């Protein structure tokens, strides 16, 4: 029996289990892309409009979320597609691939289901092989559909195929990164955290490299985010950069396989050490218990957002530099360089808020796992009231969301202040993120409401979060009408420092968040506890 015996059967089982989840991802990614192409074609129909758009892509924001900027000089549909869509697609594919691989490797081991399977005729490497094969298949399908869609819109066949293949290979690379992370950490949650951190660092490498030099410098080449665009589809196609994906995937898979051979099922690479025989002074109530449980994730998220923010803050100097060397930008942005920097940074604050919102929702949703595992039952069987328990979970989530938001504002401010040598940016950006605080809290509050009153509606929460991110990231490009933009939770409050603070919407938004939190407490007080 080889290490991979049963991988095929297991792959079919994985596809069966996740048929809806994977179909939704495939439809959403391939469908959005196919829908965006005619929109782009329509929106920028004249040469003038297209070159105006290209100028925008040559700004810092354009580089961060566009890429190294190949083909901007002749911005036809092909290059437009590659510049406008690639980063969004890659980030989404990274999220999909990491979640999938973790779900079918480490999370399975953690739950004990892997033990059940491994007791059958199943090789030790089969679960990981199945996770990787299925995610490879899904990525290839998505890449293939995108390539076909592009060919369908009369774009060059070879370039479209290369682009689709590049996207798919990038997705598989992110899955392979997750497979390595799954060997290191014992928990599904920390595995995905580690993988997302790695992907975030790789994204930043590309951003910094692409900012430094048009077309990217050596730093960009260290990032799988770069290689799709370095193949230069619709500009000067070269397949060679795509080979890098192949090499890296093989290296990662071999690493993961070797690491997994060095450990037991369910164990991490680092063995669990004995701990204290009794609880310390601090661990005496539900709030300290929550903090104890979430400590790792609060620190990780705060640090990750801080790092992200500092690195984006320091890009302010690039904005300044571009503004000085490229007089055309004045025509677009006006003459005040501070306005341009402020516009860039206020745009980045919305990413901080999105991150904090996702964190808040995840933090609250932990209560569901606690409940279904029976730990909530155990706690409530002691002299702990339901409102006290749920309320403390909400308080911990709210305070740590505030932490993440402040870390983001502080990071942006410090980064910008350091490179621009102007301390005022710290205060400005702290104000900017705090002015968006209700938007960072609203998904946590909604998660609480769902848990307290209607646990089955969790899907709705993710739907709205997904839509809000889509509208905020892509809405401008896709020319969403005002009402559609206003459906995004992140578009309801003005963005400082470019826009002015308005007290009334802020108070109303905060009130809605508090109301949802309060209703969730009433709901949790009055419902049956659900234990699996």
């Amino acid at each position: 029996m080889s290490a991979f015996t049963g991988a095929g059967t297991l792959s079919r089982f994985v596809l069966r289990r996740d048929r809806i989840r994977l179909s939704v991802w495939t439809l959403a990614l391939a469908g959005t892309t196919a829908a965006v192409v005619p929109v782009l074609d329509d929106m920028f129909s004249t040469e003038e409009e297209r070159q105006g758009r290209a100028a925008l892509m040559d700004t810092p924001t354009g580089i961060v979320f566009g890429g190294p900027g190949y083909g901007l000089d002749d911005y036809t549909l092909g290059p437009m597609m590659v510049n406008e869509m690639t980063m969004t697609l890659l980030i989404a594919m990274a999220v999909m691939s990491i979640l999938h691989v973790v779900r079918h490797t480490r999370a399975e081991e953690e739950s004990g289901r892997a033990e059940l399977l491994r007791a059958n005729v199943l090789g030790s490497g089969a679960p990981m092989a199945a996770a990787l094969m299925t995610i490879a298949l899904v990525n290839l399908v998505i890449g293939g559909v995108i390539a076909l869609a592009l060919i369908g819109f009369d774009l060059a066949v070879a370039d479209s195929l290369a682009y689709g293949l590049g996207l798919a290979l990038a997705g598989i690379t992110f899955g392979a990164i997750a497979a390595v992370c799954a060997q290191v950490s014992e928990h599904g949650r920390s595995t995905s955290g580690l993988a997302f951190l790695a992907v975030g660092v790789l994204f930043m490498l590309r951003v910094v490299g692409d900012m430094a030099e048009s077309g990217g410098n050596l730093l960009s080449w260290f990032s799988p985010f770069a290689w799709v665009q370095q193949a230069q589809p619709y500009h000067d196609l070269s397949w060679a950069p795509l080979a890098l994906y192949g090499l890296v995937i093989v290296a990662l898979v071999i690493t993961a396989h070797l690491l997994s051979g060095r450990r037991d099922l369910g164990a991490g690479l680092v063995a669990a050490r004995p701990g204290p025989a009794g609880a310390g002074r601090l661990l005496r109530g539900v709030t300290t218990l929550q903090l104890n449980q979430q400590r790792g994730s609060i620190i990780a998220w705060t640090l990750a957002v801080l790092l992200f923010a500092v690195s984006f803050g320091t890009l302010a100097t690039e904005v300044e530099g571009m503004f000085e060397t490229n007089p055309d930008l004045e025509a677009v942005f006006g003459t005040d360089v501070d306005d341009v920097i402020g516009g860039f940074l206020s745009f980045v604050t919305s990413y901080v808020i999105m991150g904090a919102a996702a964190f808040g929702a995840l933090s609250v949703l932990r209560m569901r796992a606690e409940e279904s595992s029976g730990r909530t039952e155990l706690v409530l069987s002691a002299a702990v009231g339901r409102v006290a328990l749920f309320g403390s979970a909400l308080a911990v989530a709210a305070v740590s969301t505030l932490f993440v938001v402040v870390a983001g504002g502080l990071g942006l401010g410090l980064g910008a202040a350091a490179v621009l040598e102007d301390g005022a940016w710290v205060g400005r950006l702290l104000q900017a993120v705090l002015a968006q605080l209700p938007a960072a809290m609203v998904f946590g509050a909604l998660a609480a409401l769902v848990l307290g009153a209607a646990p089955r509606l969790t899907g709705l929460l993710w739907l709205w979060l997904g839509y809000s991110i889509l509208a905020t990231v892509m809405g401008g490009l896709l020319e969403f009408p005002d009402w559609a933009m206003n459906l995004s939770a992140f578009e309801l409050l003005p963005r400082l420092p470019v826009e002015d603070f308005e007290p009334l919407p802020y108070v109303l938004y905060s009130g809605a968040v508090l109301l949802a939190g309060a209703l969730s407490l009433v709901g949790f007080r009055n419902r049956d506890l659900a234990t699996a």
Partner: protein
Amino acid sequence: MSAPAIDARGVDKYFGRFQALDKLDLTVRTGQVAGFLGPNGSGKSTTIRVLLGLLRADSGSVRLLGGDPWKEAVSLHRRLAYVPGDVSLWSNLTGGQAIDLMGRLRGGLDTRRKKAFLERFELDPTKKARTYSKGNRQKVALVAALASDAELLILDEPTSGLDPLMEAVFTECVREIKEEGRTVLLSSHILSEVEKLCDTVTIIRQGRTVESGTLDDLRHLTRSSVHAEVEHDPAPLAALPGVHDPEIDGHRISFSVDHAQMGAVLSQVTSLGVRSLVSNPPSLEELFMRHYGDELAALNGGTEGGERA
């Protein structure tokens, strides 16, 4: 006499359209060890969760330590300790930390008792919960419950993960708890355990109480089983009054017999020339089987037939 520690009457509980509890009655007097028996899925854990105020009864009355378990959960829980059937702990905490935490959440823990029970259950409190086996997780919850000064212990299949040695330790501990005058509700499907420990037994099936009383009360309701090998044809025995379910295999016969007829039947067996004779007193198992075997299946008609085998 004071109010019973647990007094549930006519409790109904629905999950959607599924009826988990159906006019369930359960009474446990203070100071008693009460067995709570039923097969998987019969509603034992649901009943316990209603008693703990984790689920709200749809109808009927539930009193626990003289209070309403739904409305007065917090104050009542100071006076009770609970061991769930499937203990899930915080994976990054050690067993010792979890025990202390549970004690503190309940309002205090006697560290001397904690130490004593840790030793008796041979539990290493410095191990992280994720490295514990099912049995060890159960021990954590047991030590936390036993080391408390709770008046009432609610134990949901507490020995399902313990080895026989630890089961013996557990039996011992429950006896001590009883001597201290505390009340125990012990849900189980391990009948010997219930037989050893319990003053009263309540048997439920499909959310309904089908039998309850002291073990002696219940024994009167049942039969002993007899296996005999005789020299002559054993067929006449089958026709005797009080003999049930006879099975004849050549000179061998097995049957069960009502206690009232035992003397008459045995003298008939003897008259046929006994080669061997084994008679088992009615065990709880037979009580149990009687309720989950023929009687209720017959009572419920053909609809339940599929569950018999």
